[in-house]
């Protein structure tokens, strides 16, 4: 497994549903790709979620 890409999205900061999120795209050894995200307001080790497209 390796990290294929990391990116961040900061959106809607002017609204109550502001979004600050870090995404990580993992390339798994079995060939599958997995995208995880983490809301930056939370602690770094908490709350990683899978992004379903």
């Amino acid at each position, binding site marked *: 497994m390796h990290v*294929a*890409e*990391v*990116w*961040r*999205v*900061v*959106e*809607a*900061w*002017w*609204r*109550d549903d502001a979004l600050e999120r870090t*995404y990580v795209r993992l390339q798994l050894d079995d060939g599958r790709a997995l995208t995880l995200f983490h809301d930056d307001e939370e602690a770094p080790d908490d709350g990683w979620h899978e992004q379903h497209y």
Partner: protein
Amino acid sequence: MHSRPTLAPADSWEAFEARRDAQEQASAFDTPRSKAPRVPGAPIPLDALDGVPYVELHTHSNYSLLEGASRLSELVDTAVEQGHRALALTDHDGMFGAMEFAHAATESGLRPITGLEITVAELDGMRSHLTLLAETRRGYANLCRLSSIAFGINETAVKGKQERRLDPCVTVEDLCAHTEGVILLTGCRTGRLAQLVEAGRPAAAREVLHAYLDWFGREQVFVELVDNLVFGDRPRNEALVRLATECGVPVVGTGDVHYHARERHRLQDVLVAIHHRKSLDESHRERRPNDEFYLRSPQEQAQRFEAYHPEAARNSVRIARRCTFDLTADLGYRLPSPPMEHGRTPIEELEQVCRRRFGAKYGDRMRFTDDDRANAEARLAEELRLIAKHDLTGFFLVYHQVMQLATEVAAEVRGPSRARSVTELPSGRGRGSSVSSIVCYLIGLSHIDPVKNRLYIRRFLNEEMHSLPDIDLDFPRDIRARLIERVYEVWGKDHAALVATLPAYRFRSAIRDVGKVLNLPPTEIDRLAKLATPYDDLQKLDEELHRFAGTADVADGKAWQDLVLIASQLAGFPRHLSQHVGGMVISSEPLIDYVPCQPAAWPNRYLCHWDKDSIDDARMVKIDFLGLAMLSAVEDSVDLIERHRGHIVDLSRIPFDDEAVYDDICRGDTVGVFQIESRAQIAMLPRTQPRSLDDLAVQVSIVRPGPIVGGAVNPYVRRREQRRSDPNCAIEMPHESVRDVLEETLGVVIFQEQVLQVCEQMAGFSAGEADAFRRAMSRRRSKQAMEAYRLQFTAGATQRGVPHAVAERMFETLLGFAEFGFPKSHGTAFALLAYQSTWLKRYYAPEYTCGLFNSQPMGFYQPHVLTRDAQRHGVQVLRPDVNASDAICTVEQSAVRVGLGYVQHVGGAGARRVEEVRRAEGDYRSLFDFVQRTGLPRRATEALIQIGAFDAFGLNRRELLWQLGLFCAGMQRSTLTALQERQLHMQLPTEQDEVSLHDFNPYQRMAADYALMSLSPDAHPMQFLRMGLGEGVLSSRHLQALPGTERATVAGLVVCRQRPLTARGIVFLLLEDEFGLMNVLVSRELASEHRDVVHLAQFVVAEGTLEVRTGEQRTLVATSLREFLPADALVMPRGKAWG
């Protein structure tokens, strides 16, 4: 009381800086840049880059308009803090901030690299970006040319020029033709190469890269990698590295920086939304996806790009080393030098020109003694020596050439008017420090004799000059407009351009734009914006939000707090490119090799991309052709006098000691007079009692921030009063060493020259040191720099026997001139015009009033105030009449007839048409005849009816409107541009439809006058509103009769509201009623309590105590204030319902 600042010396400069910052915010926004020093710092050597892991080569400042979210100073300061040693500025398509950046960076020890991110119009119609850096002087010239092309310099059609202004870009061919000396980075995500790689088109990408190599050369091209944690950055960079390796091209990492600190991403989002005229919610596609476009440290960037390629960061340093072009030192601009006659050298030519005029100016033995001539000779010799020493001969000869052109232009423009051509009316007049120069006087740049007026030269020319002297020229508007065209004809568009300004966001406009993109309610935003003053700050806006009923409940909400923060960040940012009021640069070499240029909005004019400070820093010849409306008014008056009375008035030969004229001035009867008409001037004139041109020179110079902050006003006024009561009374001087310098201004510093002279006389400064100190004050120099001057001043003064405390106090006084002040030469030039305009007002009031009306907008007062003042001086103001009025205002006997062009919806073109048709075909016989012959749009004709321009036809205005409706019912279209449609389709009888109607009542007519002409010739709103105010509200006439210190209540139309920064929050309201004007002083507390009334109300009732001092204007010191609305106070018979 003396109002000298009482701050402790150590704090003073900070206090002055704070005050000046606020003042700049209030008034300076013709260009938003911080003021860079004129004397460049030493260039940063290349070895400064030793050991640096990374140089940022892709940075946008707020000169990437509505895109970059940081000021240059913020970027430079942050770069220095982070350990950067060099920085490239690569703003979008323009190089507006290049010179300012180069100076600011150099001064901060940062090596500046000049660059540009250019937009390329690709063959497939797409737009792409390339990052270009100036490696050499030739490369810099190519960047300037590319930027100029991007903004349409080569476009010939109007449409093409407009398109390029809105969408600057170059073609691939343009790019290919301008590659020498340029280093190419292949661009950010929107670069062609990056787009092709991202689209999975490696073959096409390879082709493009090879094309770049062909155009620029293999050594000049670098594949650019950007990583801002945007989705797609990593795979794209990896593909770009593979491509570069395959093609043998080096890679380089850049930050694509759009702001100096992460938190500015919000402002950047807002700017993008404003740019695209969308709300934040609507601009998702246009905004950047995150907050990662900030300036990072060299170490962080080196680490980031190490992951892609080991050389990506190091190559940025290699490029920085190669970019040896330094804009602060290598521009290479040379002053133009006109051709010489008879093989003379330039200095011989200049001397010849001066000698030719010397006899004419000083030869009259009745006016000049041998001593005068000897003094003038000595002065001329000294100035010529200094001009030769500083190699300024070409500079003066260019000005001489310009003035010769101006003389030709004036003759053309003035035409057959004997008054304007036979008399010695100059084509233009100098202002500023140049008026002190005898060379300027002799070559026609100034009309004031500097020897006779004892004007100090060293502010203008001295031994140690670091920049070109300032020469500003005032022209009547008509002459100025034609002169600018002539300059283009003579020098050509390649060698002459107007200087730019970049109008900045003020607090008010920032609130509007930010509020809009945040989707906040327009009504509340509008009201808040109206309440905001330019020197408001974040805290005041927040307070206002909490105070205002419309926002108090939600003021702590997220959106409103965002508004407060972002609007305060945005205030001061450049908003768009515009042209300076009159500055032009002229060059012997093509200008676009020095600075990008573009077509101006005005046809056949070109605009360079630098503001006046950058032009100044580049030591380029900038000639200020200023349009001075008062000159137009005066020339118009002289013309009218000749036409109506047959008098030729030569204003240079009128008596300058006319007691009656000075009586008017001393009474403060100066509404409409040049420079001494403001509320503050009118209040002061009765106390200072100017009785000569010298006195007037002081008077026009004293109500300026410099003397006010320097504490000069009250002592001067008091001493004038003392001198009047005892002409021999001794005037207290700060110290005997400055008696000669300050004698004429009664011991206080009023003129800029006196700052220099005091430095020389009291502290032993050289002329150059004194001028450097003056410049340091007027340009934002550090506290350390000012402290160094303080030490030099006090040490020098102490050495000369001046007590330390006296020296400290004097230095404090001089610091006041960090604010704006006049040189005496400028004051003298303006005093002359102030006197001449007062003279015209006294002896030729109708013509002068007419001249003022025709030169609007100008001056301190609106036309309706001038109307009332003219009436008080016996001048009748007549309303427009289609058979009597011209397009502009005219004089009829002792009355002024308002021109048709004054009427809203008619406009200049419509008014001229009405006049031309009447002159060609005879008077209009009826409304129908008028409509048929002029073809004016219906709205214009309606407006003319409403203000009474058809009253002479016998029908009342309602009946005329009814009749117009009947005519127009048969008219499908009627405009000036569709002449074939002007005739009514069929002249059907309308008599059967005509009805007898009651006319509008006087109040309605007055309301129409104000709405459509902004003045009423025969009515004032207060004469209708007064009865609704009840008992006890006094008129201005009653107020004049009160003995003083009495309670009084007054009411009136607010014609002026002033909140001088130097008045510590006090607001001055000038109210007008049907009898005259009234001064109302509103304390800071009261103004704060009634902010809405003070800022927004049209009609105000003020209660307070009348303050009366002998000879002074009366002022009501308000203790309460309220708005009154006409609808509430109006008591009128109920009108008949109609339609």
